[in-house]
């Protein structure tokens, strides 16, 4: 059986785990290609205008998998921790997909809701595994070893400072991006911490940060301009928790750590500036990123800039703001160093 996984939304968080689980159960996994204008516009053409950009991209990815797999894996992640809630687009992802992409192959799903406890989670995993085998212990083994894969993935990012795409490349080899024919690879990146090199953290959901099309290659742009880029995945759980604790006390949203947790940490540690990336119309982010922005006004906090992404295809607006932010961070850093 061939299982399609859309390269969008939670792909960047859980791909190694999902892939491993299905392969352990004898299935084959195919991933949709990197987001392109064609994928995004096909998604946009299906969903109502008010839906957020990442969800539109997701539908485009599902559509690109039609005819390439026997079924598509679309989990419904409701809650990962008791009393911590997820955005409605994740809750209803399988249903939403069924509604807007009727030609979608059969959907394999799993309901993850930790409000119902761990027992229920195992029941859900069993239910998912039953599509492949009747052997319970085989499913449990696959799930346990998939979890190990997930931890390995996280470790690569935390311990070696890799971004998710870099960690995926390390684990599964290079997944070529649809570059223009003959386009050269990205310029060699300075890895050494050259003195005076500015450090900037980019915070936000992985499906915004690492989707080159949605983010207009923002991280690459920074790296090419000799900036050492830090991302939320590079932080250990303690740093994230203390960031959340400082900014909001207790988290309410499931994917709050990559915004509020990372923001809380980076505003006070490791970097000269923080860039928050949000998709226009994201409800949770309008609250979460604002918490970070408010905190950035406190004395001693790193410089902060919020960038909002939409369907605009021109990059000029983003580049202007990035150039200005980098200029500012560099001038401030130089000033600090000459004073010291």
């Amino acid at each position: 059986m061939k299982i399609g996984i859309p390269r969008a939304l939670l792909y960047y968080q859980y791909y190694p785990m999902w892939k491993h689980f299905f392969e352990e159960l004898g299935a084959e996994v195919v991933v949709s290609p990197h987001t392109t204008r064609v994928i995004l516009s096909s998604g946009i053409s299906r969903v109502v205008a008010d839906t957020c950009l990442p969800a539109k991209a997701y539908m485009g990815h599902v559509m690109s998998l039609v005819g390439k797999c026997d079924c598509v894996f679309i989990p419904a992640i409701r809650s990962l921790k008791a009393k911590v809630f997820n955005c409605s687009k994740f809750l209803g992802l399988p249903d939403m997909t069924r509604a807007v992409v009727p030609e979608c192959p059969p959907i394999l799903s799993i309901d993850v809701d930790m409000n119902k406890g761990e027992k229920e989670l195992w029941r859900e995993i069993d239910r998912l595994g039953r599509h492949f085998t009747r052997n319970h212990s085989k499913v449990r083994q696959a799930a346990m070893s998939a979890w190990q894969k997930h931890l390995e993935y996280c470790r690569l990012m935390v311990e070696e400072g890799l971004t998710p795409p870099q960690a995926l490349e390390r684990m599964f080899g290079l997944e070529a991006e649809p570059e223009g024919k003959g386009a050269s690879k990205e310029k060699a990146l300075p890895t050494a911490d050259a003195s005076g090199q500015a450090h900037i953290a980019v915070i936000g959901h992985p499906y915004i940060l690492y989707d080159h099309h949605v983010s207009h290659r923002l991280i690459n742009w920074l790296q090419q301009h000799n900036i050492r880029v830090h991302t939320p995945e590079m932080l250990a759980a303690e740093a994230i928790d203390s960031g959340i604790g400082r900014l909001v006390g207790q988290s309410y949203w499931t994917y709050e750590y990559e915004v509020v947790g990372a923001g809380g940490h980076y505003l006070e540690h490791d970097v000269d500036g923080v860039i928050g990336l949000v998709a226009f119309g994201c409800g949770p982010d309008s609250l979460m990123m604002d918490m970070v922005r408010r905190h950035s006004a406190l004395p001693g906090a790193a410089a902060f800039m919020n960038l909002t992404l939409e369907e605009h295809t021109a990059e000029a607006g983003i580049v202007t703001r990035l150039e200005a932010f980098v200029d500012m961070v560099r001038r401030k850093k130089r000033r600090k160093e000459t004073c010291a």
Partner: protein
Amino acid sequence: MEAYLGIDVGSVTTKVAALDVNDELIADFYLPTQGQPIVKVQQGLAEVRRHLPADVEIRGVGTTGSARYLAGTIVGADLIKNEITSHAVAALHYIPDVQTVLEIGGQDSKIIIIRDGVVTDFGMNTVCAAGTGSFLDHQALRLNMGIEDFSHKSLDSETPVRIAGRCTVFAESDMIHKQQVGHRIEDILYGLCQALVRNYLNNIASGKEIRPPIVFQGGVAFNQGIVKAFREELKTDIIIPPHHEVMGAIGAALLAHEEMADHSDSTKFRGFGISDIQYRTSSFECKACPNLCEIAQLATNGKVLARWGGRCDMWERTSAG
């Protein structure tokens, strides 16, 4: 005589400024872009040339504004800088102790926070261009008056009406409703100024600490109604620098001077002769991958000078070679 040029090609207006070696403004020109950035850069350069002494020698050129890369390629810029940095540098040049810069242009509005001579924070309008110069122009046009009349008339307001300034679409329908129930045009105009200022302070300037001295620059600083509304809302004086409409160009010239002082290279400026060259722009959709990038190219005499717009560097490389 030696001079440095700064060119600011904005979405609505194009500005050219020339500074002498002491960074004194010796010539400037301000003209509407009217959707033709290349022609306007050529015209602006020709105009400025007329006001410069015959023996002028350009030692450095900087470009800024949303068409800075296009303009930079045409004139041969030594430095291409974003508008925030250019405006901050120019404001600091005239008012060294400035702490806040308000800038409203045709499509962009910005706030720049400066402490001890360094930019420490800035804000810029997000995805939409509500409340910028082009909206004021549009309203003046709709009311069949020049933007200058708009400015003067709004000062005659006695009881300004309240206009929703959150979004220009709402603002316009609000203005029309008020006009249809008989409010005076002066009161509607000043009401609009207040709405835009409120919107600016609540959005772009939200969470920023606005400390005096405050400098207001950009084309919209011509508008007396907006200036008055800012003074009232902030309850403090606001400095309008003498050349507020060309501050971006002045900043680019200052930065070009700084750049050329750091490096002893000679300027890349192609000379004032470029005003007479025919440039041709065209665009095509690249089919090399599913991204279908829109590539724009600039050519003269059948020779491609530059290409932009690709997500990869495929076309940029072709143009360099």
